[in-house]
């Protein structure tokens, strides 16, 4: 449905000292009807990618296919103007035109667009789109008199009214308050899945991305670092940056003493049996990623004796729906999320097991990953 091939884009840097390209070779494919998310920290080039797809910016190199047409091809020097690409887009600011009514906003693509519809159908179709987002009763209200959530729905109705081949969403939820954001998350996904519209969704919030998408492309500094289903990205990160960005994973300095299968990693607190990505060489400096829910405390009756360690409880934070525990294992601190009913106290010694299938060694350097975390949050 959508294919990006090796897009690069530099902006003329009047204000920046260093002229880093905003995109350094972005490629991915999106299938028909898929809910595809571009995830990444601020400034990684998500909006730029989206604008290249939309036709609002021209990349320096690469090509873009939508459906069967190459809408942009740097080599051939062709670029289909934004209005001919047949897309719908919800902008971060919603871009509701304040000098028009809600209905005028929504019917704009039908009246002034490239693919117009007969004037008798304009109003019914616009109303239908508004009803889809449950705003049919506000059709004749001037646009500035809407709340944030209503504006967001109007923007969605406007983006969908002309039945676009592709729906582009640039952080549409980030301006809403927390509660509304959560309801809109499910509603939005339901809506576009029911319509079957292929959707590209941009966000820097990993919870949003994981909860809504069929597929995620994680971006960093103008490159796609990992592409896959939410489960892939969360459970099998292929890079320390991904592991860092996607959750509260424990990251431990490690190096492989034995390659996969049956990989073994050496850490400061001992040898750990684990999975390892293919791109990690034996002996090379790498990172062991352990999900905070992967840690098993106490004697769980596991038959094998591998990956068992003694730990001391260094800190306990009660969060209502979970218990965050910091465990001192040798010189390393590991964080575990436990169920809130467990009654661990600071100073307790516990037996700790790291199930091998839940531990992954990825390439990279912790020091390098840490710097991006602050940017993302």
């Amino acid at each position, binding site marked *: 449905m959508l294919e990006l091939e090796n897009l690069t884009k530099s902006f*003329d840097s009047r204000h920046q000292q260093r002229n880093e390209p905003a995109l350094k070779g972005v490629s991915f494919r999106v299938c028909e009807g898929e809910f595809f998310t571009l995830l990444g920290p601020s400034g990684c080039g998500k909006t730029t990618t989206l604008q290249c797809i939309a036709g609002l910016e021209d990349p320096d190199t690469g090509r873009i296919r939508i459906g069967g*047409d190459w809408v942009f091809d740097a080599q051939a020097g*062709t670029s289909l103007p934004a209005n001919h690409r*047949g897309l719908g887009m919800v902008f971060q*600011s919603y*871009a509701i*035109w304040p000098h028009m009514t809600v209905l005028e906003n929504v019917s*704009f693509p039908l009246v002034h667009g490239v693919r117009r519809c007969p004037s008798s159908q304009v109003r019914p179709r616009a109303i239908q789109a508004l009803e889809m987002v449950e705003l049919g009763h506000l059709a004749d209200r001037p646009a500035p008199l809407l709340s944030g959530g209503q504006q967001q729905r109007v923007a969605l109705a406007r983006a969908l009214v002309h039945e676009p081949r592709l729906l582009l969403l640039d952080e549409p939820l980030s301006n809403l308050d927390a509660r509304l954001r959560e309801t809109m998350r499910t509603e939005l996904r339901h809506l576009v899945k029911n319509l079957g519209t292929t959707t590209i969704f941009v966000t820097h919030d990993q919870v949003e991305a994981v909860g809504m998408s069929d597929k995620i492309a994680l971006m960093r500094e103008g490159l796609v670092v990992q592409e896959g289903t939410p489960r892939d990205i969360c459970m099998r990160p292929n890079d320390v940056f991904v592991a860092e960005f996607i959750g509260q994973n424990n990251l431990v300095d490690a190096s492989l003493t034995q390659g996969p299968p049956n990989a073994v990693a050496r850490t400061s607190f001992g040898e750990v049996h684990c999975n390892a990505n293919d791109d990690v060489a034996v002996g090379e400096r790498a990172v062991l990623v352990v999900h905070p829910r992967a840690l098993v405390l106490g004697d769980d009756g596991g038959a094998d004796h591998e990956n068992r360690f003694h730990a001391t409880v260094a800190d306990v934070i009660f969060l209502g729906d979970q218990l965050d525990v910091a465990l001192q294992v040798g010189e390393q601190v590991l964080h575990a999320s436990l169920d809130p009913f467990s009654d661990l106290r600071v100073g307790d010694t516990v037996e700790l097991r790291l199930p091998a299938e839940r531990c992954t060694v990825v390439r990279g350097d912790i020091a390098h990953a840490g710097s991006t975390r602050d940017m993302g949050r």
Partner: protein
Amino acid sequence: MPSRRLNQERVVLLLLCAVIGVLVLGPVIVLIRTSFTPPESMPLETIALTLENFVTLLVSSNTVRLVLNTVIYALSSMAIGVSIATFVAWCTERTDMPGSFVIRVFMFCWMAVPALVVGFGWILLLNPGQGALNVLFRELFDVKGYVFTVYSFWTLVLITAFAVVPTAYVMIAGLLRNMDPQLEQASRVLGGGPVVTAFRITMPLLTPGLLSVAIYMFMAVVQTFDLPVIIGLTANVPVLSTRVYLLSAPVNGMPNYGLSAAFGVVLLVLAVGLMWVYLYVTRTGERFRVVTGKAFRPRRIALGRWKVPVMLAVAAYFLIMSLPIVMLLWISLHTGYEKPGVAGLENLTFATFARIVENPVVIRAVINTIVMVIASATFVMLLASLIGWFTVRSNRKLGKVLDILSFLPMAIPPIVLVLAVLLLYIRTPLYGTVWILVLSHTTIYLAFGTRTMSSALIQIHKELGDAAMLSGASWLKSLRLVTFPLVWPQILNGWVWVFAHCARDLTVPLMLMTTSNIVVATALWNLWEFPDLPGTAALSVLLMGTLLLVAAPFQIYAAYKNR
């Protein structure tokens, strides 16, 4: 599939660059070229290159006097004008003086009053022979000769200073009202009295702003032409702008375009230098800029026992400002020159107005003026809106070129630009039509228009226009239906401003005057030279009335909204 090189946006950008290039660069190149041609030849008719003009200019002892005159004239008018403006602005913005709203409106509207007309009024009041004030003093105090004369350097300076005040006031009032009141409040809270606060906090904070206003006004006076030509010539106070005019349109003899162009180049260099200083000062001013977008209004200072003196001072100023206008009104209501007084009341008549509006030359001038002002204002705002869009939105290289090109006319004194336009088009059919006036005005006011539009467009979120394109509208349509409707008030405001300035301007029509492209300003000039004093007065009153009628509603509305 359309090529990426040939979309609407790019085509419009290329067209704009071509148009602006011709408008701006064409004349400048011809001007510089002409300054190097031998004196007796016509511009563009010779390939000879000579430094003769510049040699003449340098060896002449007159040149030094000319430049000195210009600088002293501009400096003193600016200093007096800006001081008065600062005082009045401080009173209306920062004190509890009553009537500040009325003063604001008055100042804004006064910008629509042609300096030319005010100059005529002053001459009628102060000329050494029949000047009304001189006559009055002669009768009251039995003095011989005259008390005042309009034809002196210092009178010219004072009259120009009064003309500078409204614009300076508007700029300074803006500075004062945008200053963050917390800076002053902090001083008060920490124990500084009102005087300490004013001198230690307010003044230093305002210095960069005031300095840039001062340089701007200095630049404006260096470039001014109307007052120096109607007063300065008789007073024998030549300045650069009138010298350029006299050389290219001498009372007798052949025009000396080469030397005129050489003087034009000197004036241009002076103006570009000032422009550079202005930009430098405003840029450093940014660094400790005190303008915050906040809606707070600073606390007003209670004048207390100073209230009456301050009000009297302001009232006296307004009385002086309105004297020439009253004089013009008086004369326009008589058939011949009648000295102001009770005796003249019996002869009040509209006969002169009736005579003037039937004069075929005046009728032609009015029609020409209407065409000229409407066309100029429309062209300027059309070009400026598009250029503004490119300077704010586009990161194409050509967009930046356009930005610089449209700013360039700001540094070209109108008199120099018109001379250059004259040199470039004198052999074309355009010369002698109204359209050459439109072309010159469009170039002169382009910089103003572009500034207005880019500061308006920068407030409009980019995504609003993008959303229209994504909805299927072409680029031009997104501008027409979304972006420009959102900045409609600023477009209209700029249009009115250009409209008023074109109508009142004498520089352009006088330099390019032929029998066929006479406009109201040049008709006034001709009537005055003829001389037909009641006719001049009546036409002045009509021009002023019309301008106020167009401009005042906007200004009153704007002043009301910003109250």
